[in-house]
């Protein structure tokens, strides 16, 4: 962990702000010095990627999915088509902002939700001892970072954001306050002497920033779903220029072992609707933002006996934002023929998820520190040159 102290503070150098705390300097400099932001969205439970973005051009698709195969999709490139419930994302694709990384995933063979999520969050597949998450390692150690540089929306802090650098979990900006504000100094002092001193300091510092935030500043109608609300909070923080660098939101319910068609239509509708609202809400602020989605693994290429799918291997990742080469499918399609499938049953991984994330961390955030220890990313073209 101490190694992080030795990395030069490229964030500050980038903005030429010298020894002034980065987020303060940027706030003072106005919109030109806006922060780059990475928004990570985790789809917990393993989304059926083969239904979200349908490989209708692969001859094996219909054979493997006798009852689940979709007859109509929103064509993307003559081979893949979006699930109709993802229609809200089509405008992003058409605007060449939304990119799809096909057959992405972890090299670890586990089909355990818990382990696979753990590996994707620690960023070290196969290695359970890693204590911090890759998003936390992305945070450079600066002298006086913004207390809200890393925010997860929800009632817990995901593994991905845990580690030595401060990161805040919040249910909503407006809930992030003390009911008894008068007691704040006393509480802060008593917790400062406790085993929860770090947590308490981070919480009280973040509270001071968020208290000063103007009321909600969006005119976009977000869907009234958990992901919708989470992304609305994130957009609010981005637009308020409080020094946000990393944001996290998640959505559960993707573990569709049984009668999945109807359930997936609902889930994908919620997912696409929330992302599209976020896209619309950010407007030109999208230039500073990259959004990336991930799910712990894909689902079996062949549907199971109960019109659902079991735990598989590769999945897909969506990405959109200012610097993303959108309107394109990235990566290599491994094929669905029996001999092409991983262990004879699942879509094979052709792009390590860390390759995608590495590019966002270095190319988008401008962070040079190795976030994925021992991993050498493949050359990849997710970002515009």
């Amino acid at each position, binding site marked *: *962990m*101490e190694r992080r102290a030795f990395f030069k503070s490229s964030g500050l150098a980038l903005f030429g702000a010298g020894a002034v705390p980065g987020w303060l300097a940027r706030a003072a400099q106005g919109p030109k010095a806006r922060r780059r932001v990475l928004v990570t969205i985790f789809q*917990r*439970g393993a989304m059926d990627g083969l239904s979200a973005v349908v490989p209708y051009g692969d001859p094996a698709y219909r054979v493997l999915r006798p009852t689940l195969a979709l007859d109509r999709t929103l064509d993307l490139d003559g081979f893949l088509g979006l699930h109709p419930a993802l229609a809200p994302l089509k405008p992003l694709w058409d605007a060449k902002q939304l990119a799809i990384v096909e057959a992405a995933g972890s090299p670890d*063979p*586990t*089909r*355990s*939700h*818990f*382990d696979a999520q753990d590996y994707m969050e620690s960023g070290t597949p196969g290695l359970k001892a890693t204590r911090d998450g890759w998003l936390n390692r992305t945070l450079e150690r600066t002298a006086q970072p913004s207390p809200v540089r890393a925010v997860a929306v*929800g*009632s*817990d*802090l995901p593994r991905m954001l845990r580690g030595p650098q401060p990161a*805040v*979990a*919040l*249910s909503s900006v407006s*809930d*992030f*306050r*003390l*009911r*008894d504000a008068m*007691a704040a100094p006393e*509480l802060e002092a*008593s*917790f400062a*002497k*406790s*085993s*929860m001193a770090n*947590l*308490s300091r*981070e*919480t009280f510092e*973040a*509270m001071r920033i968020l208290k000063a935030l103007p009321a909600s500043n969006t005119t976009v109608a977000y869907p009234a779903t958990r992901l919708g609300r989470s992304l609305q909070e994130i957009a609010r923080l981005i637009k308020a220029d409080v020094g946000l660098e990393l944001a996290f939101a998640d959505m*559960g*319910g993707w*573990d569709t*072992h*049984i009668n999945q068609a109807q359930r997936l239509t609902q889930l994908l509708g919620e997912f696409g609707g929330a992302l599209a609202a976020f896209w619309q809400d950010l407007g030109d602020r999208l230039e500073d933002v990259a959004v990336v989605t991930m799910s712990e693994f894909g689902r079996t290429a062949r549907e*199971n*006996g*109960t*019109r*659902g799918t*079991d*735990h598989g291997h590769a999945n897909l990742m969506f990405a959109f934002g200012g610097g993303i080469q959108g309107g394109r499918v990235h990566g290599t399609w491994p094929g669905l023929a029996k001999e092409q499938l991983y*262990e004879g049953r699942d879509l094979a991984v052709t792009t390590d998820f860390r390759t995608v994330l590495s590019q966002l961390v270095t190319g988008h955030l401008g962070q040079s520190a190795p976030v994925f220890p021992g991993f050498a990313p493949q050359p990849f073209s997710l970002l515009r040159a």
Partner: protein
Amino acid sequence: MNRAILACLSLTLLANDAYQAKLAKDQQITHALNRLTFGARPGDVEAVKKLGLKKWIDRQLHPETIAENPKLTEKLAELKTISLSAPEMAAAYPPPQVIKAMAEGKIPMPTEGAEREQLAALVTIYKRRNQGSDEKLTPAQRKSLLLSPPPGQTVAAELVEAKVYRATYSERQLQEVLADFWFNHFNVYLDKGADRYLTTSYERDAIRPFVLGKFRDLLRATATHPAMLFYLDNWQSTTAAKGRAKGLNENYARELMELHTLGVDGGYTQQDVIEVARCFTGWTIRAPSGRGGRAGIYGGEFFFNPRLHDTGEKTVLGVKIPAGGGQQDGERVLEILAHHPSTSRYLARKLALRFVADEPPAALVERLAAKFRATDGDLGQVMATLFESKEFWSQGAYQSKMKSPLELVVSAVRAAGAEVERPLALANLLKGMGQPLYRKQEPTGYSNNGEDWTNSASLLARLNFATALEANKVPGLRAASLPSALNLRAPEFQKR
């Protein structure tokens, strides 16, 4: 790098020292109350002192020797659904669409039967809520209508209410803590279809009776309960498609090994998952007679359907299971798993994590696992061993665990001597804190690791709850003036 390893080593050494350091007498009582109960009430410390700590623990390990709190008995008696069987429940508390249809005259009301009166009451509530009503309601009736759960949610609501009451008021506290632990270990999700009706019986009949008994009985009770068969989809998993049989579903087989028994590193392969799933084909749910179709499973019971079963030979964890075993295939798998050494270690570590420390000492885990193996998985004896261990009574364990939201809220209510008037309001608070009762969607259950509950959102929610309780402004709670020595907002109170 070397420095990092050194630092790690010295931390480990320090931690080990902490598990050697003994507790003072007063600390021992506080610690026992923190870990064996949902928190000390005013007077509990004195009561334990008077009885003697050892004797008090022994009684908690034998809950049948403890007289139950009459207040709890009285409150539970008001909850009509918690003692019904699943078929009775499905008959008397049908799903909302059935109540709606009855209210609209599309389904006739039964003219006889024990549930008639109950159904009429639900239809009345439905009409009052949804169609307006020409009846004049007294203010008391109107209030009770607004506060009562919508018809169709009564069963789920009463299950939640019972849990809050029991955690708060039961004298058999260890039994309640263990019921929470083991339900969470064998988690099902209350909002998944038929589990709305099956979870009450699941906790009552498949979890509670076994929390201090044999693990294999607990395991089998969960494996054969319709709530689990439905939650992890096994009820529809069949041998290769033929006729109504549709094919295999791996969900239960995988979680059975990963979460219920061996643990993810317990030494099984993907092929084992498939073989175990084949063994359990035909373990399904039978609708009670006369209640077919989709609604039938709401009151369904376990049964083995040989026509859905894969009759071929299987190999599970290297053990051959000969062809033609029928239901015995699944029974054999449960025996193999319950007695596998990985299961003893996995369960020992999980218990130590809940009751001792976030990173429990390996020596303690090994001792608990050995006791598990030596006693054919006797959970009462494993718990007794844990409560006799030096690690349990050490400075390393003392106040080391962050309370979960449930532990925090209930311990505050108990410490304040507050009365729970509307348990659903408390359950609603827990939902906001990230721990809705019976509603963890994933089969992992909630984390037993205190660190997972440690974050800024959680800290603020806890402090705000404490502030409200101190001012007697928590919905659903009535708090008299707090004991003067009690500070719910103190850092120590967040831990146990």
